[in-house]
């Protein structure tokens, strides 16, 4: 099965990088949004390769189903088709910063000696639920605060956008 995972990884990596470049470089914003949705989908594929099945489902549900639709709605509502997707004044500095960052990260990753564990995790959903909700070292407080945060975001967005 190793060869399957290898082929899947290289194909998905190529699609992710191609889609990300399309998002940033395409002139037509709507096409850029569609490529962003493709990118989200393939990141879910990467999660499946890494045996994080619940996260893959959550990624598709949250990113593609909600954030993708939201971004496309926003593009509909703020249409500036004359200008499209131009580059700003900081194009060259941004390129230099991006490349520097990339080179630094790749150098760090390649030269560090990671303690890689070879065991494959067991089915993750029940362990994930226990990690989130158990009493001793669970993340219950963060979970509840995240819920309040989402409520605040929803109310804030409604207040910002409603007609006076």
């Amino acid at each position, binding site marked *: 099965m190793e060869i399957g995972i290898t082929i899947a990884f290289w194909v998905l990596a190529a699609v992710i990088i191609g889609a*990300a470049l399309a998002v940033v470089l395409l002139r037509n914003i709507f096409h850029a949004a569609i490529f962003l949705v493709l990118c989200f989908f393939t990141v879910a594929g*990467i*999660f499946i390769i890494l045996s994080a099945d619940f*996260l893959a489902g959550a990624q598709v549900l949250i*990113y593609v189903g909600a954030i993708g639709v939201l971004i496309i709605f926003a593009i509909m509502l*703020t249409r*500036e088709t004359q200008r499209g997707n131009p580059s*700003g004044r900081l194009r060259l500095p941004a390129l230099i910063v991006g490349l520097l960052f990339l080179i630094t990260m790749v150098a760090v990753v390649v030269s560090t000696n990671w303690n890689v564990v070879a065991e*494959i995790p067991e089915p993750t959903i029940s362990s994930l639920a226990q990690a989130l909700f158990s009493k001793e070292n669970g993340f219950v407080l963060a979970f509840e605060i995240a819920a309040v945060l989402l409520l605040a975001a929803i109310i804030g967005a409604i207040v910002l956008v409603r007609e006076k």
Partner: protein
Amino acid sequence: MAVGLEHFLILSAILFSIGLYGALAKRNAIVILMSVELMLNAVNISLVAFWRYVAPALMTGQVFVIFVMVLAAAEVVVGLAIIISIYRSRETVDVEQIDLMKW
């Protein structure tokens, strides 16, 4: 060659730098938001790769990813609300023209 931790981390770094370029160099505010989403996805990939290869028994990596997704959703909602309300009063989403607070 088998796929190891370094492959996922380098993929995450490439995705992050593409998002970084987009967030710094683009003029349309929605494209900047899309690039920020790319950066958050890159971070998610590297978190899950670390969980899988370094500490699979401890579920903290996946919990962190869930919270990052929640925060990304909240941020997109509020960001797009701000962009839409700016569009309503200025008729533009070009960040080089929304500079009323600068001297």
